[in-house]
């Protein structure tokens, strides 16, 4: 198969010019998102360039310890991003959300790389880093939406939560409607997205593999596995984040403390 056509650095730079239009729209409607969007693209560029250099280096080195450290760093940043975007208190929520994401990624990576692909070394840089990156990248948005919905609803519908408690519900029972709502809001679009893959959208990983010269059949199989992994890891992360964070969010009488 033909190798992928490289993009020159000048062309890459010219590619940024198209951003003027979306940035103008964000500015025109005074969304307050322009600064965030600008820095997001700057960050993305620097991160990806660094990762590019770094990946070349670690693929050659392929040390399990180094690969695990890199994955942990990615998870720290993921947890930080989730908290930052959910308006939650970093001090209270960092640890629960970090542990939740680490556990989810650990379970899914072990299952996918060890059990499905049957790698001899599941810490192999070529698999561990991109797969974890895809898992985190694709589940972060869902986790943010789920946690935001859950805590916003709890704050807004505090009286409903109390009504359940005072009429005989255990804390877990009183939280069911809020968890249900968070799951519906966060996972509805994900499910819709899963249903249209291949028809309307060609996912990034598959496209990347095909561009990189892989057999489309292999790329498709990886993509199917990845969709399953992302979905599962997102639900695990949401479920575990709420489970761990709830221990800090309620007082001894099950009352909601100040959050965010």
């Amino acid at each position, binding site marked *: 198969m033909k190798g992928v056509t490289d993009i020159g650095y000048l062309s890459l730079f010219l590619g940024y010019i198209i951003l003027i239009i979306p940035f103008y729209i964000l500015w025109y409607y005074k969304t307050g998102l322009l600064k965030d969007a600008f820095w997001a693209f700057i960050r993305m560029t620097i991160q990806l360039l660094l990762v590019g250099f770094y990946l070349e280096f670690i693929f050659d080195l392929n040390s399990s310890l180094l690969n695990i450290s890199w994955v942990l760093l990615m998870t720290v940043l993921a947890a930080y991003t989730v908290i930052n975007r959910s308006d939650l208190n970093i001090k209270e929520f960092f640890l629960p959300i970090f542990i939740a994401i680490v556990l989810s990624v650990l379970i899914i990576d072990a299952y996918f790389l060890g059990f499905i692909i049957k790698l001899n070394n599941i810490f192999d840089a070529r698999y561990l880093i991109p797969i974890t990156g895809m898992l985190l990248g694709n589940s972060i948005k869902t986790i943010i939406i789920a946690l935001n919905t859950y805590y916003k609803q709890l704050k807004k519908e505090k009286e*409903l939560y*109390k009504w359940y408690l005072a*009429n*005989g519900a255990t804390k877990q029972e009183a939280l069911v409607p809020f968890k249900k709502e968070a799951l519906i809001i966060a996972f509805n679009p994900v499910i819709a997205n899963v249903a249209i893959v291949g028809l309307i959208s060609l996912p990034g990983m598959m496209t990347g593999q095909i561009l990189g010269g892989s057999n489309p059949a292999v790329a498709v199989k990886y993509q199917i596995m990845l969709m399953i992994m992302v979905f599962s890891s997102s639900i695990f992360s949401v479920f575990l984040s709420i489970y761990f964070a709830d221990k800090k969010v309620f007082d001894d*009488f*099950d009352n909601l403390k100040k959050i965010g």
Partner: protein
Amino acid sequence: MQKTTKKKAKNIDPVVISINNISISYKNNEVIKNLSFQIIKGDKAVLTGESGRGKSSILNALLGFVPISKGNIFLFGKELSPGNIAEIRSHTAWLPQETALHFNSVKDIIYSLFTLKANKSNSPSTSEINQIFKNLNISHHLLDKEIDEISGGQKQRILLAGALLLKKEILIIDEPTSDLDEKNKKLITDYILSQKDLTVIAVSHDPYWINKSSKIIVL
């Protein structure tokens, strides 16, 4: 000393609620100071007085929703504590003043409570629901309505129906007749306060409710 009195009382006149020298503060502002009272089984108690005197805070404190800075509270002889709170709440029915609770339908209000472990065994039959709706002057057609199709007063009575169907020992209600017209006010008051074994503790400004109550606590 207080404990002995309580134990004795439990055997003769079961004390359902015992509030001993409690204080409640919000940000250094003491709204309740050294308050004590007891409510025995079947009492129809009402807390009344000017706004801002902490009446709702007492109801909230009874359920562990508002912390007390001093004193102690006993329900069914059990001290209100993190270890006992779930058990205590499994014996209470509560109707808050804030009836802007989010539900989808009238059926949601009635049935969601009976999905809870503590209430499952009390799940009402259709005829029980129809009967309580009749007693509270709620048309049984309302059972099939969406929540935005009913009025505030109807919602309040439906929430009350749900609370009564739970058949709990204590009914804790904050301004139970605030959204009701005169006719329904009297009907609801007469109905609730005539439930012989039910212990009621309410916050109310309504003279009719207050007159019909067996114990009046003015704050």
